[in-house]
């Protein structure tokens, strides 16, 4: 069974997914950061593949992408770092990235490598549903990779149902009209959107991301979904850290309490 499905079957609420850019803050930090995230009690690790033009990301994650690229991170490098990582990491691991670097690597080769290493799913913000269904679905399924779709407050009910039909694992609910890390608070309109989607009785679980940064916003998101994804706030927390284990533990435990 895919580790993501296993997680959602065994844990029904307050699931915390942590995003970190590969090769950030330093090139060789990828695996140590993953281990620290697991040790601190998070449930899913989302690893960002850095890209020169991340259009769905706000300034914090953009900057981490730039730094990671300057550090020399690439898909090849990441895969070499992840060789054998399943000996240490049992949490579900999802790769988040933009389509272009994956196409240049070779999509099938990428999927094959993900399976060999033990990656569970992919979040590709610039791969819309129609292109996924026509060009990639069969390939992803062949290699046991879950494709995680995003929905936003503007997504129509009809389309949310379609997303639900084609989703594996969970649905990534973008909390607002925004890029990552843009807002620190959750507004009443956003809560209405959370409620509206919660009431749809979708077959897939949902995690809320964008604008989730601390215990209060995690708590609120968890009221309307199975949990949340934290990215920018985590990146800020480790950006200038000289004691990664300690700072990651403090951050994650501060969020989950």
């Amino acid at each position, binding site marked *: 069974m895919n580790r993501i499905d296993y997680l959602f079957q065994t844990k029904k609420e307050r699931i915390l997914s942590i995003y970190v850019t590969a090769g950030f803050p330093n090139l060789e930090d990828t695996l140590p950061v993953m281990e620290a995230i697991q040790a601190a009690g998070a449930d899913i690790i989302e690893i960002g593949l850095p890209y020169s*033009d991340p259009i769905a990301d706000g300034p914090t994650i953009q900057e981490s992408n*730039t730094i990671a690229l300057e550090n020399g991170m690439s898909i090849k490098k990441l895969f070499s770092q992840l060789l054998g990582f399943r000996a240490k990491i049992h949490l579900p691991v999802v790769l988040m990235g933009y389509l272009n670097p994956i196409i*240049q690597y070779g999509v099938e080769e990428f999927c094959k490598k993900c399976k060999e290493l033990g990656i569970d799913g992919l979040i590709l913000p*610039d791969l819309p549903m129609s292109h996924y269904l026509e060009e990639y679905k069969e390939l992803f399924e062949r290699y046991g990779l879950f494709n995680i779709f995003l929905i936003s407050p503007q997504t129509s009910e009809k389309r949310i149902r379609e997303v639900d039909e084609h989703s594996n694992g969970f649905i990534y609910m973008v909390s607002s009209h925004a890029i990552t890390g843009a807002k620190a608070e959750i507004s009443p309109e956003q809560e209405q959107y959370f409620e509206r989607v919660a009431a749809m009785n979708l077959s897939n679980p949902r995690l809320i991301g964008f604008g989730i940064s601390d215990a209060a916003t995690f708590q609120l998101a968890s009221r309307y979904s199975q949990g949340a994804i934290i990215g920018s706030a985590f990146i800020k927390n480790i950006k200038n850290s000289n004691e990664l284990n300690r700072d990651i533990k403090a951050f994650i435990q501060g969020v989950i309490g």
Partner: protein
Amino acid sequence: MMIQVDEKGFYGNFGGAYIPEMLYPNVEELRENWEAIVASPTYQEEFQSLLKDFVGRPTPLYLAARLSESFGAKIYLKREDLCHTGAHKVNNTVGQIILAKKLGKKRIIAETGAGQHGVATATVCALMGMDCTIYMGELDIKRQRPNVERMRILGAKVVPATSGSKTLKDATNEAMRAWIADPVGTHYIIGSVVGPHPYPEMVARFQSVISEEIKWQLKAKEGRENPDLVIACVGGGSNAAGAFYHYYNEPKVRLIAVEAAGHGIHSGKSAATSVLGTPGILHGSKTLLMQTEDGQVIEPHSISAGLDYPGIGPVHAHLHEIGRAEFVGVEDEDAMKAGILLSRTEGIIPAIETAHAIHALHQIEFNANDLIVINLSGRGDKDLETYIHWGNY
């Protein structure tokens, strides 16, 4: 083979709409509605009237007698440089702002490199009384001061893009992020034949007035609608798409797309995407793209900021792939010389983008007495600094 966009926004292998879900409703709204709106009589009435009285269309098709004589061919210049704001860019912004109004949008955003598209957008926003924000790379803001001030005089807010390389591609990223942040009230006026479907085709259609006019003007002057060659410069490729549009499917008309070869195509400082690019995805469409082996986008170089883009529109990638258009790379120094040549032979100081197209006359083969149309996409006022700095005149 007919050259036209298919239902999913592809020209052959290139195009599509690779966009985040957050932009899906906006792009879908546009895709579903734009053609019907543009075809409606009320739209056409307003559009045609503005093209005539505000932009100054039709622009002349001018027989460049002395240039013709020196090259031994009959060379016409399509005078887009005489459009209001100094370049063809305004054809598209007029078209899109009427569309935005009909879609009930209140706010306009746009990206700009050298500032020409920014000025053309700020101009139509002032005309329509709409709120206008222009995203421009921090580096370009420093390099293109007069255009920044023109936009501000016109009432637009100019926001610096401070990420990545701080130039056009980053300004485009910022504009897309701003669109994600206000999907309901905002329309994004993309300035070239790039971006997710339906933008490339929509912008090409607004620019296609160029070749539409060339056809009847040439008929009146020469008794034939089709020249032997049409030459245009290509950055993203909007003026070329406009000049080629009604000739795509006239195989006897040679289409010459002129790219910026910078310091030399293989010098590492170039923007010759047709040679250096490989298929990839940028700003929502699959196209030829300058990128590293790892798929990171490379910052191009050209002396002209308008050709300084790491991709080309998907239609041009297709024209290149099937061999329908011939691609020529013109270096910085040669473009500058061609700018001086046109100034001295015809009394027209061209934009440096356009000067690349002029220089192509030296680099391609044609027959004596061929009928050639060069799209004179913009005037050189904005480039005075670059001419002065170059100094070789």
